[in-house]
């Protein structure tokens, strides 16, 4: 299990791993490639400037984990590339200490005609692992990538999963001081994803500083103690994860509301009963069913009405033999995407039970569902035992209508009293 970083005190306090001041990246937009040549030779400013990133300053100490969030095009990838050193800044300074490993795009630089082993030595040299060091690391990398004798076959005979496994095993073969991850938790199959997450956790528990960029706010909240929200190339908020993520979520909701007002509501697809999405292969961990109890049949094109005061949702899932998963649900206002609540067995410390047929099953009951009249949507999630790897997610998989006779403006009834 991942430790919250405040509990990691083995690191020497105050050792700065990364210090960035006034960082900016300018893209010069030329009308034609010829203009670029003239600018290069003549030194003229015949271009328009586009600042993908400007004014970023931050300092990361040993053992800290910073999550990077923001909309598409906010400059997240630019910042990661600048910090990884694959792109040069137009202004500002970056001071890094120690080994920096970036998991940006895996598999770059592998030559298809050479064997996995040959590529390992070459790829290693690109990220600063000498041949002598590689001799010591080789066996571990091959074992981690689970390539066995395939390591001596040309890389062009590998499946894409094998290439990514080899690449991940290679870049993480040596423990870095600063680890930069771009959405890399989605590497390979479920089994390998889990290994990747465990390796990253191990680095973190050893005091490695991590910079993590993801669209999954769930993972950012789970992994990071600090977050940076980039908006249109500028930092909008930097601070404790919960506060920054909350501010960003409010911004996303406002955006969605704007979009929903502009476009007509899409036709309702799902109804109260579970319409199972095309299921993944049975040997993978997956959700099997999401059932809502007490629904009355739909009248006309509406979604079914909740006929009981309580909302009871039963989740069923299958996992690889022996792994006890975690299950979670999310309630949202249908259409608007306004989140109402989430609940997970890993958060609440509930042990999911296995039934005789091998499925894992858990039911959640919202007693006296305190929602006002409206349509609501249910999403279901299946997690691994640590609550980090999302094995399966069914978004908006069921909808129901709540009718509450005494509805007043608003979404929920909160416990209250007058005095």
């Amino acid at each position, binding site marked *: 299990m991942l430790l919250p970083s405040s509990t990691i005190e083995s690191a020497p306090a105050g050792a700065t791993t990364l210090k960035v001041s006034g960082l900016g990246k300018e893209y010069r937009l030329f009308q034609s490639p010829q203009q670029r040549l003239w600018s*290069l030779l003549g030194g003229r400013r015949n271009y328009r400037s586009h600042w993908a990133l400007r004014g970023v300053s931050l300092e990361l100490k040993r053992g800290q984990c910073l999550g990077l969030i923001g909309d598409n095009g906010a400059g997240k990838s630019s910042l990661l590339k600048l910090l990884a050193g694959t792109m040069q800044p*137009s202004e500002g300074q970056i001071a890094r200490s120690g080994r920096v490993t*970036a998991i940006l795009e895996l598999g770059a630089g592998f030559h298809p005609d050479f064997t996995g082993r040959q590529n390992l030595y070459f790829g290693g040299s690109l990220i600063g692992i000498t041949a002598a060091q590689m001799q010591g690391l080789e066996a571990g990398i091959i074992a981690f990538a689970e390539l066995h004798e395939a390591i001596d076959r040309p890389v062009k005979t590998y499946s894409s999963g094998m290439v990514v496994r080899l690449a991940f095993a290679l870049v993480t073969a040596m423990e870095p001081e600063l680890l930069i991850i771009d959405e890399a938790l989605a590497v390979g199959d479920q089994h390998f994803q889990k290994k990747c997450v465990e390796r990253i956790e191990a680095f973190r528990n050893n005091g490695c500083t991590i910079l993590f960029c993801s669209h999954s706010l769930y993972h950012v909240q789970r992994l990071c103690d600090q977050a940076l929200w980039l908006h249109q190339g500028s930092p909008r908020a930097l601070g404790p994860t919960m506060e920054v993520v909350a501010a960003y979520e409010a911004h996303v909701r406002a955006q969605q509301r704007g979009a929903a007002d502009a476009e007509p509501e899409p036709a309702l697809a799902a109804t109260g009963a579970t319409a199972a999405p095309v299921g993944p292969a049975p040997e993978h961990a997956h959700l099997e069913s999401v059932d809502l109890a007490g629904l009355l049949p739909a009248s006309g094109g509406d979604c079914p009405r909740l006929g009981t005061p309580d909302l009871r949702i039963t989740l069923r899932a299958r996992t690889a033999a022996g792994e006890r998963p975690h299950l979670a649900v999310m309630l949202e206002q249908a259409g608007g995407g306004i989140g109402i609540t989430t609940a997970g067995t890993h958060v609440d410390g509930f042990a999911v039970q296995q039934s005789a047929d091998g499925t894992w099953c858990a039911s959640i009951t919202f007693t006296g569902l305190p929602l006002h009249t409206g349509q609501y949507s249910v999403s279901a999630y299946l997690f691994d035992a640590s609550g980090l790897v999302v094995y399966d997610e069914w978004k908006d998989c069921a909808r129901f209508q709540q009718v509450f006779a005494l509805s007043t403006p608003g979404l929920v009834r909160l416990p209250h009293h007058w005095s």
Partner: protein
Amino acid sequence: MQTLLDEARTLCRLRALCWTLTRRETAARYAGTALGAAWAYAQPLLTVAAYYLVFDVVFAMRLGEGAPTRAVGTYLIAGMLPWMAFADALARAMASLVDAGPILQKNALPPMLFPARAVLASAVVFAPLLALLLLAYAPLHGFAPALLAYPLLVLLQVLLCALWGAALAILAAALRDTMQVVAFALSLGVFLSPVLFPAHLFPAGWAWALWLNPMTAWVGAYQTILLQGAWPAPAAWVGMAVWLALGALLLNLLLRRSRDQLTDWL
């Protein structure tokens, strides 16, 4: 010149990586062939052998008065092999940055590593061939002391290719047309040099145009050493110095102006 010196220092620090990249480039180029890297040597060797057979053995052609040697094949080879080395190194270096785009965008490496590796990979092929050339021509004039200048010429030629190759690689990154223009110039350049005809055969009014080709100075110097066993003329050394200095100045300027954007152009 500070930018260029910094870059050179970085490359010097990364020389082990540069050498790994060089070996890999040679291996990758001939991956899947039975003879492997031997092909790299076979092509120039067979070309040179063909010149010798055709011009000196089969047709026994002779140059006129005033040429440094009478045998056409012997004359051709002394200039042609260095020219082939130059054209090969320059063409490879010019394409190196654009080719290395995917690697550079995913690894934190100095871009100049790739032109350097291209020139080195070419030198690994041609330096031994140029050494063979020296051994073949040395007996013509009884191992004259001027042969000592030969290794220096080869080294300066590698430097020339590195400076101009890197500069052209940056220009090619900025504007891909550079590659077409330079490829055309390389195919015609051999006529604007003393490789095919002795310099005195050029019309007097046009002799200056020969110096527009950087290799004129080198080819002249090689021919003087190999064919006559004499020290290269001062004009040749001046020509070399001018082209090296121009290359260094241009590369320094391009490096300074493209520093933060070079990878974005690939």
